[in-house]
């Protein structure tokens, strides 16, 4: 994965509250087993009308969208389904940072697994950023957002930050815990009961 360090861009605003992952990638686009090329599906039913025409007023459509890499979202951003297709679609679309007052928990973790930096900020800072039209700088190492003269610090799990800054997949970290896992299995052999009688067809 590409390391996440500093992202600097203007921001696009999509401030609706409770935007669920069904809005981000409607279910009919999940009939693919690939994790790529989903940017074209992002917010499809909000970007396009029933006849397929582009809705110019939607923030992710031009002329409003100008290639920004930072999105300011609303509260409970990404609630609902666990589909990782949502962060895959954001990344494919060209976004690297989402800043919101709060996130759906599964979506939040899925973002951080995909070098998409999700940042929860307090309502006051969120309000400021939702009105700010200039450049925004997000510095993961400093855990700081700068917009004009305003600085907003943010919290992130130090483990997630470590992995993101080095572009490390957590899969690598987990597989390195093999000796501990083997020990746990040995100690708990009686509690770990293999499934039986579930023969496959």
């Amino acid at each position: 994965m590409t390391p996440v360090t500093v992202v600097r861009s203007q921001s696009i605003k999509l401030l609706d509250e409770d935007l669920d992952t069904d809005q981000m990638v409607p279910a009919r686009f999940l009939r693919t087993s690939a994790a790529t090329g989903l940017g074209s599906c992002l917010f499809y039913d909000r970007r396009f009308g029933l006849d397929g025409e582009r809705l110019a007023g939607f923030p992710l459509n031009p002329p409003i969208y100008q290639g920004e890499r930072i999105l300011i979202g609303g509260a409970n951003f990404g609630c609902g389904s666990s589909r990782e297709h949502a962060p895959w679609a954001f990344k494919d679309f060209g976004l690297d940072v989402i800043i919101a007052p709060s996130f759906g928990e599964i979506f939040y973790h899925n973002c951080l697994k995909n070098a998409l930096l999700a940042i929860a900020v307090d309502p006051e800072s969120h309000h400021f950023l939702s009105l700010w039209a200039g450049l925004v700088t997000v510095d993961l190492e400093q855990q700081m957002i700068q917009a004009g003269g305003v600085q907003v610090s943010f919290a992130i799990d130090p483990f997630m930050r470590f992995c993101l800054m080095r572009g490390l997949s957590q899969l690598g970290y987990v597989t390195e815990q093999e000796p501990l896992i083997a020990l746990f299995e040995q100690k708990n052999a009686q509690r770990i009961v293999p499934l039986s009688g579930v023969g496959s067809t």
Partner: protein
Amino acid sequence: MGQTLFDKVWQQNTVKAETPDQPALLYVGLHLLHEITAPQAFAMLEQWRLPVRRPDLSLAMVDHCAPTSKDANGRFMVKDQATVAQIDALTSGCTRHGIPCFSLDHPFQGIVHAVAPELGLSRPGQVIVCGDSHTSTHGAFGAIAFGIGSSEVAEVLATQCILQRRPKNLRVIVDKVLSPDVSAKDLALYITTKLGAVGGKGYAIEYQGAGIRALSMEQRLTLCNMTIEMGARFGLIAPDQTTLDYLSRCLLRREIEASAQGLFSDPDAQWDKELVIDADQVSPMMSWGTNPAMSIAIGEELPLPATATERQAYAYMGWQGQKVASGRVVDHVFIGSCTNGRISDLRIAAAQMLGKTVATNTQCLIVPASKLVKQQAEDEGLDLVFRQAGATWGEPSCSLCNAMNGDLVAPGRLSVSTSNRNFEGRQGQGARTVLVSPASAAQIAIRGHL
């Protein structure tokens, strides 16, 4: 200081303890997979050249895009080539890695959150994960059960472990027994309105009290299933005699009594948040908006939308000019899903529909949550009741809960549904969804309007 049920299960399954710098590593006792979120995980494993560590603790099935209908020759009418490819990606991945997989023709196939419980595979004290947000369902057995993304599915396949920070503890106490006409679905919607769509964020929710103890196992599954709609990934209930009795009747029952011992919250356990529900205040519920927290008691006046989100939901649902929901024409009724597609749900629906006919303006689709539920329902003659009423009796699938298998509600149409989400477009682009219990759905199907 005492421990909560959640903390006990957490501790029992900790491979590596949490520190400020690292999340805990938890051992997964049951890993469920399905065709929408597992194929990408198989691709990740293969990219890393990693084997599946414990195929014997993993189980896959086709549910989200399983067709509800068969053709004249008894063949499943799979929607399109993309769906064929998706099912193949799951089954071939499982074959390569030695994971048991219930494809369309398997006698145990069904929705993951119905099948694992009914077979007796979801057990007290386990960590259970699945690439599906409604995995909270299995918490009804006193397990830590939660939805994960595809990257995490790959991590679990490779190591049988999951990285996790411990959430805070929230208890919801239902101190009295619910009235007989109120179901666990109504209770879940009621609690969601009290907590809000984000009220459970950061918490594991344990349901306690006489009102919970009195719920059947299937009702407990419904309640825990809906926990994700409160913003919490985890919902759980301490195992008791109801749990043990249920498990002892399961097809693939295993020794469970020992594993359930001591699995309850200590009286002096500390809670970070608490909500007490007066069971007398809970009546049959319906959603009016575009998330489950936007719900009211049936018969109550529609709320005046107060926020931009509520105004948008109100407009999307087409309530303009209406003070009350009643009288509005219903185009579709869907009874099924991992929330309300179990045998007890179908019995309740059948009791309402016996000897009656679905309104001419309404299409009613009833989809059992699994092959075993379907068989049981047919043994009891419930399918006849539904067919004679004019409803369609489908093959096990997620079906209209997420509208991926070809079952769709047309734009602007109103669907009354026993599923779990009324999000915009959930049942089809532009479709409008009202969430209710199975009893309410069946009554509405007969009447043809709210």
